[in-house]
């Protein structure tokens, strides 16, 4: 049982922190980048590729680095720390993760290689307007016409769906939910992109008899694969949220030390410093849970179960920290010209993308009566 990074993990963190710190050293740079499509910086994306970050979790034979959930969490936390808009979790962990889990060797090489090199952006088209954080498809159907599969239906909101070169789309087949690869320039594909409140991009993806390539062999139900890929993305989002909360708290503490009211700096007001202390408590408890969840996934434990717990803790903490960070700043906290509000916005978006705190709590509640106590170092978490 060891909560400390090894030297390789520390090197990775320092490298990513250095790169992103230069790219987004002040929030104006981020505002500029997010103001224009695709909502992130292609150059920074390319540098992340050079660093190997975009292939981090994939096997070396698939063009990846063969790293695991812990390294993914290291990167995600640094992304969150500066609110880097590059879609690491969305494109690499979730979309790429689906291909890595389900794709044939040929597909993995064909799709993950370019993704890792930065020459192809992936997006996971799982969400549908009428469902909610579901691992199985309902509104998009796949039919085979001759040799080729064709998809029809609507996916929305699809993070970075308009920019993506390749979409990983879940659809209903006779066998249940299957996954497909759809090229960005495929016929019968209409993508309408828009800004999300946190400065990112999402899209309505409408498929109308759109040709698609079945991911993996056969059409056995892939719901469990999607569930697990979503879980790994939830764990990565938890780390991203921890990074964002960390900066939000540091920024708030710094503001309290420098902002003057009634002739003294705000850190002279105990009611404010105590609330900052409570924010720190929320952060540290969330950090422990997020780290643990990445270790569970790394150790081959039940990542789906651990992800639900990490999601619940980081959701509650993210709301607490996001609200208080603005309130302790006062008026400047609600302006787009100052950084802190963007942290609250991003924490709010993360909270709603793959299942929020209530969603997680309800899942835990369903099984809470089936065991006496939770042992983080025992089954099912240590596999």
């Amino acid at each position, binding site marked *: 049982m060891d909560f400390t990074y090894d030297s390789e993990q520390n090197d990775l963190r320092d490298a990513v922190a250095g790169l992103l710190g230069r790219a987004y050293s002040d929030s104006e740079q981020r505002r500029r980048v997010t103001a224009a499509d695709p909502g992130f910086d292609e150059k920074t994306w390319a540098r992340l590729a050079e660093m190997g970050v975009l292939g981090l979790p994939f096997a070396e034979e698939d063009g990846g680095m063969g790293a695991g959930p812990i390294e993914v969490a290291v990167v995600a936390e640094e992304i969150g720390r500066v609110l880097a808009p590059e879609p690491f979790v969305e494109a690499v962990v979730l979309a790429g993760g689906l291909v890595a889990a389900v794709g044939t060797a040929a597909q993995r090489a064909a799709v993950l290689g370019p993704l890792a090199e930065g020459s192809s952006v992936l997006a996971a088209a799982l969400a549908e307007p009428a469902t909610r954080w579901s691992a199985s498809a309902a509104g998009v159907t796949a039919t085979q016409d001759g040799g080729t599969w064709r998809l029809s239906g609507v996916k929305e909101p699809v993070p970075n769906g308009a920019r993506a070169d390749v979409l990983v789309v879940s659809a209903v087949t006779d066998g249940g939910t299957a996954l497909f690869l759809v090229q960005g320039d495929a016929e019968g594909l209409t993508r309408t992109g828009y800004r999300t409140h946190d400065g990112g991009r999402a899209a309505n993806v409408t498929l109308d008899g759109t040709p698609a390539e079945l991911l993996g062999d056969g059409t056995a139900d892939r719901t469990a694969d999607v569930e697990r890929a979503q879980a790994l993305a939830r764990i990565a989002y938890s780390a991203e949220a921890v990074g964002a909360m960390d900066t939000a708290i540091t920024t708030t503490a710094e503001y309290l030390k420098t902002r003057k009211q009634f002739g003294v700096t705000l850190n002279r007001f105990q009611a404010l410093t105590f609330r900052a202390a409570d924010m720190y408590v929320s952060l540290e408890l969330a950090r422990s849970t997020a780290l643990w969840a990445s270790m569970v996934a790394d150790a081959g434990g039940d990542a789906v179960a651990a992800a639900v717990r990490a999601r619940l803790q980081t959701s509650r903490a993210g709301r607490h920290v996001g609200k208080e960070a*603005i309130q302790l700043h006062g008026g400047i*906290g609600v*302006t787009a010209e100052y950084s802190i509000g963007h942290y*609250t916005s991003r924490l709010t978006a993360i909270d709603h993308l793959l299942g*929020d705190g209530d969603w997680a709590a309800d899942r835990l509640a369903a099984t809470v009566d089936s065991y006496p106590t939770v042992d983080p170092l025992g089954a099912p978490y240590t596999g």
Partner: protein
Amino acid sequence: MRLQLSPEMEAFRDEMRTFFTTQVPQEIRDKIAAHRHLTREQYVQAQQVLNAAGLAVPHWPVEWGGKDWTPLQRHIWREEMQLASVPEPLAFNASMIGPVIAAFGNQEQKERFLAKTADLEIWWCQGFSEPDAGSDLASLRTTAVRDGADWVVNGQKTWTTLGQYADWIFCLVRTDPTAEKKQRGISMLVFPMDTPGVTLRPIELIDGGHEVNEVFFEDVRVPAENLIGEENRGWDYAKFLLGNERVGIARVGATKKLISQAKEHARDVVVGGRPLSEDPRLTARIAELENELLALELTALRVVANSADGKPHPASSVLKLRGSELQQAATELLVDIAGPLSVASFADGGSQVPDWARVAAPQYLNYRKVSIYGGSNEVQRTIIAGTILGL
């Protein structure tokens, strides 16, 4: 103690409800209900409809268009307006500078400004807060120096709401830097926004909207007759102004409206084959919020009933504090009902995300302001601890 409204008050409430739901243009009310921003023209149109019926400034002196209503009538008027999604008369005109001029202005100023202020022919904005004077308003630095028949104003204001639409600004300026108590030595000046030396810089808010501005003054010459009331007594006028109509700040009607919308939308969101409106966790959450709001409304009614003398009841701070918390809780509820759809904030044509879900998150983020402006919740707690509990 009596629960029911008197027959007269029942009739009054019906009258208000009928007027607001039939006389104010539907298009404007729909836009408010959809939490979208009105155009300048729509603000003006709505207020002029109210003013034509004598419903824009009922709390003003009768000779200037007021109604001599009881506090309860004013409460009913406001709540019905909010429930009907009618935009309230511009606060800077109706609740702030208007009452100040009516109370402290000279006859010439009253005749010059009040009618146009009630009818929004003059759109006023507020020049109080400064970058280094937020909750600590009295430490403001903008100066006005007398030069012949004019005051010469230099400095900067911020958080000037809808300043981009304003014709005139009412401004707190320091006219006596030597006064030993910083509250003394402050005066209130009014002048047109197109006066030479006035420049405006929009401030973008976290929801992408443009509501507030910075206003810069560089050697702005203001004729002496634009001083409101007495020189160096501006702080008293500001306190009068901010204490005015404290009851409305609970915004119970507006929050009621948000919750009823949340209930509607919850029926349209289906999770695992069941509408969210049947989810026990959500209904319990709505029940708690609704009960808190009921308690707040009843407290507002108590305050109303006990503030017939016009002075703000000390419990007004409870209304502002809890009222802002419940507004924020209601907007958070809407985001959670929207769930993943809430990221589609700036979707337009080609999206299947309903409009209410698109605005939910920006509104939630925007509403973080309500516990900050108009006396932050920290200021309200200070008032409660100090003036009520004597701590």
